[in-house]
């Protein structure tokens, strides 16, 4: 089954408290090369059958209306992944 992958990230100007907590934990485990972390979300939408342009457009619409909140987040990627 093909899947449509949607990636959502907090907007660059929004402080990401979760990313901040993670970057604080990394050096405690010896990972000292990373100066910042931002945490986003990945959604996988399974399609029964072929991914048409119409279905891809629906996925983009769903990404903007439900999967992300445009006040605080950006949809950074919508792509088809074949199983």
């Amino acid at each position, binding site marked *: 089954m093909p899947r449509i992958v949607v990636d959502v990230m907090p907007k660059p100007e929004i402080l990401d*408290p979760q990313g901040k907590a993670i970057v604080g934990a990394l050096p405690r485990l010896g990972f000292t090369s990373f100066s910042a972390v931002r945490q986003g979300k990945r959604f996988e939408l399974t399609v029964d059958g072929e991914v048409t342009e119409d279905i891809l457009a629906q996925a983009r619409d769903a990404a903007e209306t439900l999967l992300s909140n445009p006040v605080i987040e950006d949809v950074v990627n919508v792509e088809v992944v074949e199983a």
Partner: protein
Amino acid sequence: MTELPLIGEAVAVAAQPRLAGARIGVVTFPGTLDDRDAARAVRLAGGTAVELWHGDSQLGDVDAVIIPGGFSYGDYLRAGAIARFAPLMSKIIDAANSDAKLPVLGICNGFQILTESHLLPGSMIKNDHLKFLCRDQVLRVENSNTAWTLDYEAGQEITIPLKNQDGQYIADEKTLDALEAEGRVVFRYVGFNPNGSRRDIAGISNAAGNVVGLMPHPEHAVEPGFGPESLDGIGGSDTDGLGFFTSVLNKIVGGDK
């Protein structure tokens, strides 16, 4: 020792029979926690509370609506994001935006649902310190002209409980400036900003003033003996939250401010 009312007996503090005709709907979603307390607060203020179910397709006979706190849909996706698309929410959004200007109050998760619904601008993200925080919180009432704050004085300080994880109010600078200029910052945190909210904002309203959202919980400070003062005496009274409910009830029955 002063005689305290027993929990379970919701005796109207306001005790004005004329208010009982005002019907305030309280919405329950899967994961809502504070619907019963909100309904109780309505009754204590003298009004009639009406249970509303998120899946209902009709709003029914109500004069105002409270969207209470809790963790609708477990805060999955984003706090309030899934609840916002409940069948009843589209009716509430239409009624709030109609000429009738249905008064709507969103408390905590209800505030998050109102921002996700775009009835109120901005959004809530995780507290800047990343912890769930529960405390008695002093607020300043900045605008006493909304449907839910008529019984307060502008500048009045009240103490009500605050309890949340995603309580940091954010919006872009332009939106914040517009909110300030239009008097739509209704409540501000006093003394301590508990979550990193921009400009200490605890609650806001829409342009018409019928829709108000805030993070702290007025419905938990409506009864003598069971409010902030009883716990730690940081100020205010046990019933500082009651004014939210008497405000809207008085407005509905056409009472004077």
